[in-house]
């Protein structure tokens, strides 16, 4: 069951790991470390998680485009360089070398962040995440169940949107044909949808209270979530990979800490 390991980890620890790794990576300012760490993370996601490759690619693609956008704007709108004589040629233009290094490290950093985030998203059930937040991170049950209730409304609201649209059609309200009209008509959809959601929420709150929900923190759970050594092992493992990457980066003399580059 190796391929399911990531899916079975405690969701709160997984989220914590991703956030801590992202913070650690923000301190690194060379292009090599984020690139290698990103590749490692993608490999780990596919080796230890049950992930749909095609979907993963589709999610990754927009980050790739943003990273490219980030790359060229960092180059074009960069601060005046300290060492202007040292330049690098990219196609027809010459750029100061330090700007190019910073631009690539920022763009690759974004991809490394993306790979970490996708590791979490593709291997975590979202209802489990909320339940785990309540049990491991002391999220108040009132908020947790409120959010889960709201989450359950989403498919209903989709249905309601269809009804509103049909109602407009029956009454012969003209449909927006261009962007300007659809912006002007937004209230016609937003207000009934929100009003419906608020009514449902009010009823749900009454139902919860009438069934004895007090929001008491010392409640019992139908689906308990626990922490095991595997969860902490994952946390340490991701750190270890980062250290190995940084070590390799130092050996190859690519490595740079944050020391006022920006």
């Amino acid at each position: 069951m190796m391929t399911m390991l990531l899916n079975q980890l405690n969701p709160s620890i997984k989220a914590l790991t991703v956030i801590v790794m992202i913070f650690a990576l923000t301190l690194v300012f060379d292009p090599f470390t984020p690139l290698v760490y990103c590749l490692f993370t993608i490999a780990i996601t596919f080796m230890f998680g049950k992930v749909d490759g095609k979907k993963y690619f589709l999610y990754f693609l927009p980050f790739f485009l943003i990273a490219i956008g980030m790359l060229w704007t960092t180059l074009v709108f960069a601060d005046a360089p300290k060492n202007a004589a040292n330049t690098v040629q990219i196609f027809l233009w010459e750029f100061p070398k330090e700007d190019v290094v910073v631009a690539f490290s920022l763009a690759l950093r974004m991809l490394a962040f993306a790979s970490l985030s996708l590791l979490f998203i593709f291997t975590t059930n979202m209802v489990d995440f909320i339940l785990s937040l309540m049990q491991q991170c002391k999220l108040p049950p009132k908020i947790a169940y409120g959010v889960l209730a709201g989450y359950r409304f989403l498919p209903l609201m989709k249905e309601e949107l269809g009804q509103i649209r049909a109602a407009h059609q029956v009454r012969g309200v003209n449909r927006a044909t261009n962007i300007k009209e659809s912006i002007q008509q937004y209230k016609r959809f937003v207000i009934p949808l929100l009003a419906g959601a608020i009514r449902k929420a009010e009823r749900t709150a009454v139902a919860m209270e009438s069934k004895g929900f007090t929001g008491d923190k010392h409640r019992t759970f139908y689906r308990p979530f626990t922490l095991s050594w595997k969860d902490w092992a994952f946390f340490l493992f991701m750190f270890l990979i980062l250290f190995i990457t940084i070590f390799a980066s130092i050996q190859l003399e690519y490595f740079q800490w944050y020391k006022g580059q920006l």
Partner: protein
Amino acid sequence: MAHWRLKEIVIMSVLAVVFGVVYLFFLPVGNMLAALMGPIGYEFIFGIWFIVSIIAAYIIRKPGAAFLSETIAATVEMLLGNATGPIIILVGIIQGLGAEAVFAATRWKHYNLPVLMLAGVGSAIFSFVWGYFYSGYAAFGTGYVISMLLLRMASGAIIAGVLGKSISDALAKTGVLSSFALGKEERKKKVAS
């Protein structure tokens, strides 16, 4: 949290869930603008990502409404597939704190248009400080960074502040908010006039 009614908590959660979806829908719009114009493309519509704190605070009028709703909306946005992952919860916390700071400065007593617009600006400033370090805006020239900040503040004031108030007022008119602070105020006004 102790003097919140369950009803208010559930409403706030539901608003946050709904706007989490809205936030997600605007992400590709922002990404498209950003891919075309660079990071400054986001700034024009950045205010949309602060709107739930303004709406929730304006309707419920209790300490924490702006902060909690924004945090939950960010979490939901992630749950539904914002690929930025858990870090976006932190972003939501920061934006929520920006708006909450402004409401705190009025001791959670004043909810008129200028205060709501300022709350949008508060979120803009807080989120900009975060973005400065996270996305490395410091690599850009000073003029570019300042125009980004000004655009984001304007977007926060107009999209979050003005639009947020207008949506809440329209909702109050339908009567569904009759048991919440905004609905009660609306009724008082009607009786008086």
